């Protein structure tokens, strides 16, 4: 994935699209949009005269070298051969939470109780999404059911600002590969060697600035 933080306005549409499509239980989020700035969502950092803020959507980074897979004692967390997608086999998961602790991005959630849906009795979202239950860990799956049908993950297809991109990083001509080549992209926690497959284009506003020669007398 490539996520363009210049375009992202923190609208939370991707977070909610995922929540509904995957029928996430009360309190669970696989994709959250984090405010960088103040201490609370949508608040600013910086100073009164020069405030700053931007947003970072955060979901499973689908690392090439996933720590979560390394620490899983049962092999429930595994990496798919064909595309390195990091998935959880709920039948094998014993809920030990080693992966939750190990993930440097905090994107895994353990179900310590039976999933709650306090306000609604209907199973929402796609019925080809595997339901989770008490005892297992869950996380973003890059909408594996959809990508296996050649579709995009839902978060890509709902973003109002067209800020999220998905494609084959091994294909040089894909949108994602092109964007990575053409922009100063960053990944999260590169020092850990996880090699996330989500690349961020840092927030920036195209600006012309005057300096030096413009002011010489």
């Amino acid at each position, binding site marked *: 994935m490539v996520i363009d933080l210049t375009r992202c306005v923190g609208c939370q549409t991707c977070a909610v699209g995922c929540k509904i499509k995957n029928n996430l239980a009360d309190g669970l989020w696989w994709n959250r949009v984090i405010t960088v700035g103040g201490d609370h969502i*949508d608040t600013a950092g910086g100073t009164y005269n020069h405030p700053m*803020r931007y947003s970072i959507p955060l979901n499973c980074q689908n690392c090439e070298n996933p720590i979560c897979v390394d620490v899983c004692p049962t092999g429930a967390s595994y990496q798919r051969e064909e595309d390195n997608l990091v998935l959880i086999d709920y039948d094998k998961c014993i809920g030990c939470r080693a992966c939750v602790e190990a993930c440097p991005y905090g994107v895994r959630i353990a179900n310590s109780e039976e999933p709650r849906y306090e306000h*609604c009795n209907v199973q929402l979202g796609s019925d080809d999404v595997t339901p989770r239950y008490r005892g297992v860990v869950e996380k973003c799956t890059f909408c594996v059911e959809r990508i296996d049908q050649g579709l995009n993950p839902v978060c890509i297809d709902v973003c*109002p600002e067209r800020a999220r991109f998905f494609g084959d990083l091994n294909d040089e001509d894909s949108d994602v590969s092109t964007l990575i080549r053409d922009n100063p992209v960053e990944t999260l926690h590169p020092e850990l060697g996880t090699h996330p497959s989500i690349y961020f284009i840092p927030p920036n506003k*195209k600006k012309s600035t005057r300096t030096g020669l413009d002011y010489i007398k």
Partner: protein
Amino acid sequence: MSTEIKTFSACVPNCWMNCRLYAHVRDGKLVQTSAAPFPDPSYNRICLRGLTHPQRVNSKDRILHPMKRVGKRGENKFEQITWEEAIEIFATNLNRLREKYGSKAVAFLPWSGSYAAINGGMPGAIKRFASIFEGTLVVDGVDFGMPTGISQVVANMAGGMASIFLGPEPKDLSYAKTIIFWGTNITDSQVHNWHFVLDAMENGAKLICIDPRYSETAAKSHEWVRVRPGSDAILALSMIQVIIEENLFNRDYCIQHTVAPFLVRQDNGLFLKQNDIDGSDNFAHLAMDAESNVIKDLDSISNPKLLGTFEVKLHNGNILQVKTALQMLKEEADKYKPSEAERITTVPAEKIVEIARIYTTNTPSTIYPGFGIDRWDNADQIGRGIATLGVITGQIGKKGASPLGAMGQSALQYTISDKVMGPWTAPSGTEAELLNFVLLQQAIISGKVDMWEPKDPSNPLAGTTSKTPVSKDWPIKGLILTTGNMVSNHAEQKVTIDEMFSEDKLDFICCIDMFMTDTARQADLFLPCTSWFENDDIVGGLHPYVMRMEKAIEPMGESKGDWEIFKLLAQKMGWGEYFKGDAKEQIDGILDVLGNLFGDHKDRILKEFKENGIARLSDPNALPFADGVFYTRTGRAEFYSEGVATVFPKSMPALQLPVNEGHNPLPHFEPPAEAWIDNPLIKKYPLALATLHTKWRVHTTFYEVPALREMDPEPVVYLNKKESSKRGLKDGDYVTVFNDRGHCVVRLVVDDSINDGGAAIPKGWQRHQFKEGGYQELTKNHINTVHYGMSFFDALVEVEKWKG
């Protein structure tokens, strides 16, 4: 492979975005929504709220049966009844009120909670019923402040919201080189227009955001201009001052398409006409010829003077001083040179100069005004200022250039037009009487309404019988509400609940809704309505398309669409002939009415709609005002007018208040009614309160959605660090926000985005979601007799630690 079936629908609350959606249905239940394609994919859209419909539609909190009040009004005690009983109660009360007080005493209030044409409020089955019943139809009243000011300059023969509809379509934003966001935070409130702005940025556009608050839009703009709330008209006038002084106005455009060269009589403020000079029947506008120094018909002058003061001899022999209209504008603007404007607005003088220069030179330039500058008693003045900026610079009627924002060319302008939808809305030939929403308070509480009385109803340009509105009897005893939540959205909530809705004043209140909103809790009769996915309907978006909404699931519980409800009521009251068939059968008739407006395009529209369920109404190449002809008295852009258009009583053309009777012909500054530095009240209540439109709700729609409440769990107030520590408050404290009108208890969020002297509470919360009170108690209905727009932000408050 998932088993859901997809049908076409739409999400149409009052965010103006009107997204075409797929409804995903499994086992007869709505389980998901997603964006459905528009013929132009740049209009494809959905947002965090539109995605939560499955939670709303299936909510356990949804009311699925008719309910009758037991106990006192407002106690929120209801008992379930049958539809038969409900319609019996409804009809009995309407008949009783009509007999006792006249049919006008029953007010029907559809609002903007649903744009659907049949089951919603645009126009909606309720309007159709109201016409047949000959009741009062409550209209307008919100969103009219700033747009009325813009309409004054570009379309004062229509007035009101006309200017919004006359803007270019949203896509036009992508052609702008400069975009000024003024009093709007579209990344949050009109999220689907932002990607057009991103397109403009890719082409090197410069974004300027004028807002007291550092909003998300401000964060994404190149320049953020922090302005004192309520002072925006001064900022606009100061920019105009710079533009005239530095000769940055578009001389040719001013001469050809504005009133700039017209001469203004200094005795009565009207334009000098040929008749004034020679007593003839010729009323041509005169101007000063720069070549010959002679005052004559503008049409005979190739080079008129745009600035200057002159003398002219009138027909009666008197010598009269005249000034060009641009001279009049200059003299008004000169009151606010940048250094003086800085003193009042707090915007640095160099910044004002810089923005004025960027706007006029880095073109095409668009100004995108929004409702942050609308919710004020003085809102029409900033509207006039913004429109004036556009017309004196010629930044209008060109691709990428518009001072009217970019919400025009919409299909909605037709579905809400009484003129267009008349045959559908008034099938019996009788009509409802229109009452402005801002005056409903007067009508209910005192039985009288102050309204302008036209001298000649057939000629709105003839002015009014008196210099102030005249008192008219207008008793209201019954209130029928749908597609809205007025108890939550009407200013001065304590007056709304304790006075307007008291059992002494209103005999009968019926509320049609999905949930027990603030308004529903005050009802005598509650009727459960369907969601957008449980009916067939047709809707005009605030984009160029008209869309079909297919019934995706059966009505849940015993809920019914508004068409069904008013059909049952009509049948009971002997008017069944006007409500034959079901909602679906109305669609073709409405589409036909719309198609008839478009001449040669009718066949295309009908064909596209039939095949695809969506059709574009307006011409993609249409650019309003491209011909430089304005819908004004003179046909020119009137930054100086002979009459100030007002929206009530509703008329077409708009009733004009004559400038020679004291109404101000120019954009000017009037201080806000309450939230202003010179108001002594500011010592007691030092903070100007903004009740924000945020992404979490659309007004009050979505207030109850679980997913959204997880991220936004409770009502909050934002104060900056300085204002918080001044009051000994810490982030996370529960605080009381209060003034003489009421209070609410909310959690404090300390955020330096907020201006000194400001407080912000996101709107839409219901009273039961507060620990105490509600934010709407704090606002006031300053009734402005020009624009009749509710002025929510014109309110002062104080904040202290909650003692609870």
